[in-house]
């Protein structure tokens, strides 16, 4: 039974999407204008394209350096999350009948309830004492703090994979490690994709943990650079907006090129 297009719904959805797009239109517009054009009308389309806002913003915030920091932190964290969190989950999922692993599962999963703000004051003390208030320390914390949610998602998924596949490998004499890397890990593809998307988004956009942890300004991430920059150059709006746009752009580009994947990944992660 195929119905015709629902024009009322289309119109309402289109109208609503203007509310989403308008602030983004303003961001692009302001980033491309100069103060004189702003004085005439801040809503109109820019008349000339002032790309110097971007080159100035790149210089003022040392954009490429921050971009590199953010990229390294995100890629390394997510890579390790994928390899280690799935391994931990595998051991838990295959030993749920043993008390140690059952308790371990409950231990990790119940930590999902603990808001980060509760531990943030002592975490800074611990990491500073260990000399880990830097990028490697930040990466380690992202990997460790990913465990509660990722174990929850991975364990559910692994338990749905039939044991027979592994038993065949065991009979052939494959070790537990070999079984995981050769058989289970490849089978985790779809759920790993979800984990990659969710952890990339949260790591890339995270502001609080870098804010409290990173001591050396040369290690600042993109959101943190915007924070510092905002304090110094709050009067030049065109420059500020060019800088915001540059900081938002990498994720927007990734999103637009992989949106179908991202949306279905988010959906899967949530339903599990």
């Amino acid at each position, binding site marked *: 039974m195929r119905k015709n297009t629902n024009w009322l719904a289309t119109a309402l959805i289109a109208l609503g999407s203007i509310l989403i797009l308008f602030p983004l239109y303003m961001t692009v517009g302001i980033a491309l204008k100069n103060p004189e054009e702003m004085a005439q009308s801040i809503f109109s389309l820019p008349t000339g394209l002032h790309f110097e806002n971007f080159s100035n913003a790149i210089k003022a915030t040392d954009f490429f350096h921050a971009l590199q920091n953010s990229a390294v932190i995100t890629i390394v964290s997510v890579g390790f999350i994928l390899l280690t969190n799935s391994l931990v989950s595998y051991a838990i999922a295959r030993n749920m009948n043993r008390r140690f692993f059952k308790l371990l599962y409950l231990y990790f999963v119940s930590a999902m*309830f603990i808001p980060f703000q509760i*531990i943030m004051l002592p975490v800074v003390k611990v990491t500073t004492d260990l000399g880990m208030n830097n990028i490697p320390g930040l990466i380690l914390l992202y990997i460790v703090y990913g465990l509660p949610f990722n174990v929850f998602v991975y364990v559910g998924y692994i338990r749905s994979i039939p044991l027979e596949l592994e038993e065949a490998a065991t009979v052939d004499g494959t070790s537990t490690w070999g079984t995981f890397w050769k058989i289970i890990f490849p089978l985790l593809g779809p759920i790993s994709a979800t984990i990659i998307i969710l952890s990339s988004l949260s790591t890339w956009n995270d502001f609080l943990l870098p804010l409290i942890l990173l001591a050396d300004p040369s290690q600042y991430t993109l959101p943190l650079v915007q924070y510092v920059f905002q304090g110094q150059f709050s009067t030049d709006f065109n420059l500020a907006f060019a800088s915001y746009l540059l900081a938002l752009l990498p994720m927007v580009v990734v999103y637009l090129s992989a949106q179908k994947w991202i949306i279905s990944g988010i*959906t899967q992660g949530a339903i599990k």
Partner: protein
Amino acid sequence: MAKRRIAYYLMTIPALFLFFAFHTFPALQGIFYSFTNWDGFSDGYSFVGLKNFINVFKDENVYNAYFFTFKYAIAATLLINVISLLIALGLNAKIKAKNFFRSVYFLPNVLGVLIVGYIFNYLFSNAFTIWGAKLGSDFLSQNILGNPDWAWVGIVIVGVWQGIAYNTILYLAGLQTIPADLYEASSLDGASKWREFWSITFPMLASFFTINMVLAMKGGLMIFDQIVALTGGGPGRSTQSIAHLIYTGGFTGGEFAYQSANAVIYFIVIVAISLFQIKVLQRREMDL
């Protein structure tokens, strides 16, 4: 078999150790410091018993922060859920350019909260005021974030603008799990759209409603980035959230131990609310 068992332990013990060291141990430390008078940087401290906790209950700033945070979290949770459910219904209907609109509505979720906050900060102070002035309204021509009574509404607007994306996707996923023949049967019975929504759609979405309410509420109670970008807690302390109070007092105000006590209470409140929500909403799921 023993070798196999050792392998399983080797897979989990490093993770257990690291998680304990960087998550549980700091949490325990926080609880420990909440009974001291440590300021965060001095060498020494002494135990003060429950003094911090008693003072937290007497602290006007703490009451302010809880009042604002709850006001924000409740308003944002309700608005996010109503609006994202409506959008999900719209996106699930037979509309044109469905994929395009889906991408648009999800876009805010990939943008960093802090930067979105900065953009809206400018819009509130410099752009929306121009429209307000054109409408000839004194109220609308002022910067809402600068008004102690109304700044929280501005923060809700930004939180909802960004928060609906994620919940919309979840509701949309939920809508797709509803079998089409339920609707066919109800349309044969001549049920109205309104009736159809309350008798089929909403009950079938019950578990998604639970997830969305809990997630949105938890997100709301933990609000931090938006506060930094939009108001810094002001004007006065009218928009200071609990997380922001713990951060500013703990790191820059020399109140490490005191804010640790505040954090312990905050933790208990969040767990209690989440459990309460899950319990009540799941009971509702079963009643339906």
